[in-house]
C-alpha cells in the first residue's frame, strides 16, 4: 500500500496539524562533539605517522565535505612521495619489534583498541555519517558495531596465532588502500588481521572519506599501540599506487573498484608482494516462488538501499521467478513509496546522500541510458530533501530490461535495482552466474533443498539465504571471478596477512618485460624440426632376431585421451648425454583451448563427486604408481642423470604425497563459522574451478604430483604443463590416471614450451587460477597478465622450493591455493512462544 503522506503534502507543524497528518518530523543527531574534535585541530589535518600527527610543509590540500549538507568538515593534505617513504620507514621499524612480540602481548593491544573504540563509539558513528553521507542509523547499527567486533575477534586471533596458525609468520609492512563506502569498517577488515598476524600497516583512506581513519589512528595511539604499527597517510589515487609499489611494502590489501584492482595487480606484478583484492559486484538477489514474498521485499531494502546502494555486495540484480514476478514487483513498488531519503544525521531516514557529485552523475547516466533503451524506471520515495545542498538520489527500480543492458551487466554503485524474471531454478542459477562478478548473492525460498542447492551453485564468496548483506568478523568476505581474491574476516582472512614460515619475501629482479612478445612465438625454444636428434637405440633381440625399437612419440593428454598436437609438431626430450629419449607434442594455443574445454566439461562433475570417491581414486593412483616404481625410477634416471637411489626416493615421495592428498579429500570441506547470526554460517571450501599449472623444472615427478594432487583432491580440473626439460614422468603418469578411474578431463597435460603454453593459459578468460613454477620473468608475466580477468595466481618468482621437504612441498598453503572460501548464511528460527 502506497504511503499516504509524502513530499507532496505540505502540512503545518503545530501539534494539532501533526496530530492530523501523522508526519514524521526531523530527528537529528547532534554533530557537536565531532565538531569539537575537528575544531581542536583547527579543522586541518595531516598524516598520522609513527604515533603522531605529521603535517609536512607545502602540500596541496583537500577539503572534506559533508555530502548531505556541503558543510566543510576539515582540510586534509595530499601526500607526496616522501610522505610514503616516511610512513613505510616507520612501519618497517615498528615491524622489527611488533612482529616478535609474544602473541599474548599483541592480543592485549588489539583488545585495548577494541575497548577504546567502544569508548568513542558515538563520536566515530557521527564522524562516519558526516563524512560519508550514510544514515546515522547505519553507522550506529552496522558499521561501528562491526568495527568493534572485528577488533575483539582479531584480538583473539592474535592470541591464538601460535596454535592456530602454526607454520605461518608475519609478512612485513602492509599497504592498505580502502574505499569510501564503509570508510572505517573496510579499513578495519585489513588492519585487524594484519596487526593480529604481526604485521604493521600504512593505510591510505579514500579521498572522500579520510576523517574516521585519522580519528582511529589517534584512538589507537591513545590505546597504547606502539608508534609506527598503524599509520595513516592521505593522498590521491596516484599516491596510493606509490604506497602499493613502495619496495618496502610486502603486502597490498585493497578494497575498491575492479578497474583499480587491475591497475594494482599490474603495478605490483613480479615484485614478490602479496596482494588481496576485494572488488566490485553485481550480486544477484534470487526470489523463488516458494519464498515469503513480503520478507523478500524487505530483503531488497537491505540489499540495494543499504548505504544508498554503495555496497560492493549490493543485491543489484533482482531475479524473480516468473510466476510471482508481477505481484512481487507490485509489493516492492509499494514498499519503495515508504522509503525516506534525508539528511545523514536524521534518525528517521532509510537513505542518506551519495558520497559525491561524480558518483551521482554516473548513476544518473546509467539510469538515463536504461530509460532510452525503453526500460521502465520507477523512482519514488516517501520524503526527499527539499534543499539541493546534498547529493540525494531516489531509490530506483528498473524493469523491462534484459541481460544485454549495461544497467544489468555493470556495477552502478548506487540505489538502482534492475529486475528480471526467470522460469526455473536452473535458469535462475544461470542468470545469477551470468556476470563477471562473484561477490555476493542471496536466495529467497522456504524450501531447504532448493535454498542450499542454489547457495552452492551460485558462484560468489558470500551467499545469504533469506537475508542479504550480513557481515561478521568470524566469516570471510571476498569474491569469485572479477570480484577479486582473498578474504576479509574469519580464519580464511588470516592467510592474506601471513606467509609460510620457511619462506622469505621474494625480491625478484627481472626488469621490464614486453608483455606482447613474451613467449609469444610457437616453437621458439626447441625448434621441433627434423634433424634435432633421433630417439636413442631401443632395438631389442627376440628369438635371435634384432628388432628395431618402437617409436616413442608422446601425444598431448586431454579429455581423458591422447591427442595429437594441433600444430602437429613434436619436440625432442633429451637425456643427460644429449641422447633423445622421446618426442613429445608441442602444444599451441588451440591445444590450450581444447584442453580448457575438456577441463570445464569435467570440472562440475568432479567437484560434485563424494569426497570418499575422490579419495579412492587418489589412493588408487598411489597403488598404480607403486606397481610401476621401477619404471618411473628408470625414466627419472634417464632424464635427469641422478642416481637410482635418488630417483627411487622421488618416486616413493610421490606415492607418499598421493597418500597425503588422498587423506585430505574428505578433511577440508569447510567449517561452521561462529558469527553473530542466530543460525548457521557455513564456510565451504569450494574448488577454484579450472586451474592452469606450470610445473617446476626440477623434480619432474614429485613436482608434478605435489601440484596436481591437491588441486585434484579439492575438486578442481586442471591443465598441467609438466617440467619442460623432463616431461616424460608426467606423460607416463597418464597411464596411471587411466588405470585409476580418474575421469577424463580432470587432469590434462600439455607439453611443449612452458612459458608459451602458460601465456595462453593465463590469457584464457575461463581459467580461474594459474600456478606457475618457473622463471622470475614468467612469474611477472603471469601476475601482470592475470589482471585482465583477475584470476588468482600462485607463482614462485623463479625461486625454487625443495619439493622433498614436507614443509615446502605440501601443507596448508596448497589447500589454500586449491580452494576458495564461500560463506553461506543460513538464519534459523521458526519456534515461537509456546
Amino acid at each position, binding site marked *: *500500500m*502506497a*504511503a*499516504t*503522506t509524502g513530499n507532496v503534502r505540505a502540512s503545518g*507543524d*503545530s*501539534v*494539532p496539524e*501533526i*496530530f492530523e497528518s*501523522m*508526519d*514524521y*518530523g*526531523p*530527528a537529528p543527531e547532534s554533530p557537536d562533539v565531532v565538531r569539537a574534535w575537528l575544531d581542536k585541530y583547527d579543522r586541518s589535518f595531516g598524516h598520522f605517522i609513527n604515533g603522531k600527527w605529521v603535517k609536512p610543509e607545502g602540500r596541496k590540500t583537500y577539503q572534506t565535505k559533508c555530502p548531505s549538507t556541503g558543510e566543510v568538515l576539515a582540510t586534509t593534505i595530499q601526500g607526496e612521495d616522501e610522505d610514503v617513504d616516511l610512513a613505510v620507514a616507520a612501519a618497517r621499524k615498528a615491524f622489527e619489534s611488533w612482529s616478535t612480540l609474544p602473541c599474548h602481548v599483541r592480543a592485549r593491544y588489539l583488545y585495548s583498541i577494541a575497548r577504546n573504540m567502544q569508548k568513542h563509539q558515538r563520536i566515530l558513528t557521527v564522524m562516519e555519517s558526516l563524512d560519508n553521507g550514510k*544514515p546515522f*542509523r547505519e553507522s550506529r*547499527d552496522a558499521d561501528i558495531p562491526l568495527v568493534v567486533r572485528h577488533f575483539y575477534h582479531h584480538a583473539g586471533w592474535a592470541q591464538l596465532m601460535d596454535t592456530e596458525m602454526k607454520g605461518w609468520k608475519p609478512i612485513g609492512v602492509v599497504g592498505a588502500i580502502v574505499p569510501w563506502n564503509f570508510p572505517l569498517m573496510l579499513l578495519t577488515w585489513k588492519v585487524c588481521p594484519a596487526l593480529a598476524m604481526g604485521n604493521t600497516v600504512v593505510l591510505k583512506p579514500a579521498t572522500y572519506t579520510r576523517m574516521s581513519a585519522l580519528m582511529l589512528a589517534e584512538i589507537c595511539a591513545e590505546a597504547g599501540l606502539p608508534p609506527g604499527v598503524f599509520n595513516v597517510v592521505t593522498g590521491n589515487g596516484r599516491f596510493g599506487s606509490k604506497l602499493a609499489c613502495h619496495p618496502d611494502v610486502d603486502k597490498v590489501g585493497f578494497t575498491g573498484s575492479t578497474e583499480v584492482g587491475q591497475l594494482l595487480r599490474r603495478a605490483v606484478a613480479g615484485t614478490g608482494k602479496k596482494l588481496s583484492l576485494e572488488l566490485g559486484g553485481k550480486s544477484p538477489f534470487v526470489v523463488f516462488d*516458494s*519464498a*515469503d514474498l*513480503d*520478507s*523478500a521485499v*524487505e*530483503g531488497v*531494502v*537491505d540489499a540495494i538501499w543499504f548505504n544508498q546502494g554503495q555496497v560492493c555486495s549490493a543485491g543489484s540484480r533482482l531475479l524473480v521467478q516468473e510466476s510471482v514476478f508481477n*505481484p512481487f514487483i*507490485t509489493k516492492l513498488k509499494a514498499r519503495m513509496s*515508504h522509503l525516506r531519503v534525508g539528511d545523514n544525521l536524521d*534518525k*528517521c*531516514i*532509510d537513505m542518506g546522500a551519495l558520497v559525491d557529485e561524480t558518483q551521482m552523475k554516473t548513476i544518473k547516466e546509467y539510469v538515463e541510458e536504461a530509460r532510452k533503451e525503453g526500460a521502465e524506471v520507477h523512482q519514488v520515495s516517501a520524503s526527499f530533501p527539499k534543499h539541493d545542498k546534498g547529493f540525494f538520489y531516489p531509490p530506483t527500480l528498473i524493469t523491462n530490461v534484459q541481460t544485454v543492458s549495461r544497467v544489468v551487466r555493470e556495477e552502478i554503485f548506487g540505489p538502482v535495482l534492475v529486475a528480471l524474471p526467470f522460469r526455473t531454478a536452473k535458469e535462475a542459477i544461470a542468470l545469477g552466474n551470468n556476470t563477471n562478478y562473484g561477490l555476493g548473492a542471496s536466495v529467497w525460498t*522456504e524450501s531447504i533443498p532448493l535454498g542450499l542447492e542454489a547457495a552452492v551453485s551460485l558462484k560468489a564468496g558470500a551467499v545469504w539465504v*533469506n*537475508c542479504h548483506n550480513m557481515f561478521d568478523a568470524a566469516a570471510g568476505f571476498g569474491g569469485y571471478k572479477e570480484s577479486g581474491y582473498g578474504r576479509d574476516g574469519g580464519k580464511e582472512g588470516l592467510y592474506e596477512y601471513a606467509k609460510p614460515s620457511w619462506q622469505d619475501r621474494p625480491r625478484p629482479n627481472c626488469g621490464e618485460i614486453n608483455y606482447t612478445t613474451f613467449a609469444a612465438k610457437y616453437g621458439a625454444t626447441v625448434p621441433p624440426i627434423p634433424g634435432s636428434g633421433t630417439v636413442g637405440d631401443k632395438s631389442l633381440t627376440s628369438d635371435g632376431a634384432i628388432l628395431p625399437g618402437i617409436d616413442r612419440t608422446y601425444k598431448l593428454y586431454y579429455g581423458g585421451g591422447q591427442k595429437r598436437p594441433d600444430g602437429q609438431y613434436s619436440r625432442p626430450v633429451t637425456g643427460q648425454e644429449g641422447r633423445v629419449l622421446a618426442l613429445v607434442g608441442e602444444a599451441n594455443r588451440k591445444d590450450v583451448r581444447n584442453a580448457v574445454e575438456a577441463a570445464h566439461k569435467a570440472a562440475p562433475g568432479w567437484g560434485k563427486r563424494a569426497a570418499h570417491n575422490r579419495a579412492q581414486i587418489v589412493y588408487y593412483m598411489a597403488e598404480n604408481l607403486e606397481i610401476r616404481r621401477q619404471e618411473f625410477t628408470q625414466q627419472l634416471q634417464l632424464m635427469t642423470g641422478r642416481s637410482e637411489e635418488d630417483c627411487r626416493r622421488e618416486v616413493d615421495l610421490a606415492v607418499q604425497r598421493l597418500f597425503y592428498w588422498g587423506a585430505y579429500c574428505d578433511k577440508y570441506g569447510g567449517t561452521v563459522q561462529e558469527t553473530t547470526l*542466530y*543460525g548457521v554460517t557455513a564456510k565451504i571450501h569450494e574448488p577454484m574451478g579450472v586451474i592452469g599449472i606450470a610445473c617446476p623444472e626440477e623434480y619432474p615427478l614429485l613436482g608434478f604430483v605435489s601440484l596436481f594432487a591437491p588441486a585434484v583432491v579439492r575438486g578442481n580440473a586442471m591443465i598441467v604443463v609438466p617440467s619442460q626439460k623432463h616431461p616424460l614422468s608426467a606423460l607416463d603418469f597418464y597411464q596411471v590416471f587411466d588405470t585409476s578411474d580418474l575421469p577424463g578431463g580432470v587432469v590434462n597435460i600439455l607439453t611443449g614450451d612452458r612459458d608459451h603454453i602458460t601465456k595462453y593459459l593465463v590469457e584464457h578468460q575461463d581459467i580461474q587460477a594459474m600456478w606457475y613454477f618457473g622463471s622470475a620473468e614468467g612469474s611477472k608475466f603471469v601476475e601482470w597478465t592475470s589482471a585482465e580477468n583477475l584470476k588468482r595466481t600462485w607463482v614462485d618468482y623463479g625461486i625454487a622450493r625443495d619439493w622433498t621437504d614436507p614443509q615446502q612441498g605440501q601443507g596448508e598453503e596448497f589447500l589454500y591455493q586449491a580452494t576458495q572460501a564461500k560463506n553461506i548464511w543460513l*538464519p*534459523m*528460527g*521458526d*519456534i*515461537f*512462544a*509456546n
Partner: protein
Amino acid sequence: MVVRRDFGSRKIGGASLAQTGAPCTDKNLSYSTVMACRNPGVELDLGWVQSTRVNQPATIRRAQYLSTTRTVKKKWQASWLLRAVTCIDLTTLSGDDTPANVQRLCYKAYHPVRDDLLKAVNMQDKGITTGAVCVYPARVKEAVKYLKQAGANIPVASVATGFPSGQYPLSTRLQEVRDAVLQGASEIDIVISRTQALSGDWQGVYDEVKAFREACGEAHLKTILATGELGSLTNVYKASLVAMMAGSDFIKTSTGKEGVNAILPVGVVMCRAIRDYYQRTGYKVGFKPAGGIRSAKDACTWLALMKEELGDEWTHPSMFRIGASGLLTDIERQLYHHVYGRYAAAHQLPMS
C-alpha cells in the same frame, strides 16, 4: 490506495462481496467514535490460507529495522502520543474488578490527558479520549452507565467467548457475546479456539468466528488470535486470514494472558495479512496489538508499523487500537515532559 482484485492468481471465495462491501469513505473520523466500516467476510479459501509462508528470521529483522529507522521527536512525538491515546482500548480485565475501579477507568478514558497539558499544545478542543474502554462482560453494564454519566461518547468493548482460554462450550460462548451486546457493548473482543487452530481445523475456526460475528449483530467484532499460543508465525498469518475471511472487523494479537503477547514481529505478520486480505478482497480490517505495550516509545513504534505496512489510514482509532492499561500513564508523563521540560512524578497524574 488502489484495490487490486486481480492481485495474485487465486480467486476470492465470496461471490457477493462486491455488493456487500462497504468501502470506508469517512475521512473525517472523530477520535472517540466507533469504527466506521465493517468487514463482511468472504468464503473460507483454504488454498490461500495454506499457501502462506512466513520466514521468522527475516520477519524479526523487519521488526528491528522498523524500530531503529523510525522515530519521532519533540512536537512530532507529542502529536503522535496524543494520537496513540485516541487509539487506546483502556483496559481492566481482572478478577477483582469492581464498580469502583471500572468507574475510575471510564472517567480516565474520557479525560486521558490533563487539561493543562492539552491546552499547552492547543489540543484541548479536539475531543481527545481513549478509543474505548475494555472490560469483562459482567462489567459492561456499569461501564456503559459510568461513561454515560460522564457524558462521554466512548464505546465499551467487552471480551467474550470464554476469555482468555476459550475452552468453553460454543453455546455459552455465543451466549456471552449476545449478553455483552445486550448490556451495551458495541465492540466484542472474542478469542479463537486455539484447539482448532493448532489441530489445523481452520474450517472450525472459520465457522466459530462467523457464528460470533452473527451473534454480534451491529457490534464490531475484534478477534483475538492469542498468537503466543499458535506456535509459529506462519500459523499467526493463517489465523489472521481465517479470522478476516470469517468477518472480523479487527484482528487482535493477544488476550494479554499468554506467555508472549504483542510483540513487533507478530504485528508485522498480522499487518501483512491485513494488507493481503485488503488487496485481494477490498475490505479493510483493523488491527489491535494488546498486552505488553507499556512505554510511550513502544506506542510510537506500533504507530509507525501501521503507517509503514498499511498506510496512514490505519493510524486512526477506526482501524487501530492498542489494548493497554499502564501505557496511558507513560504517555501522559512524556507529554508532561514535552510541555514542562521536567519529568512528572506519578502522583501528579490522575491514576486510572
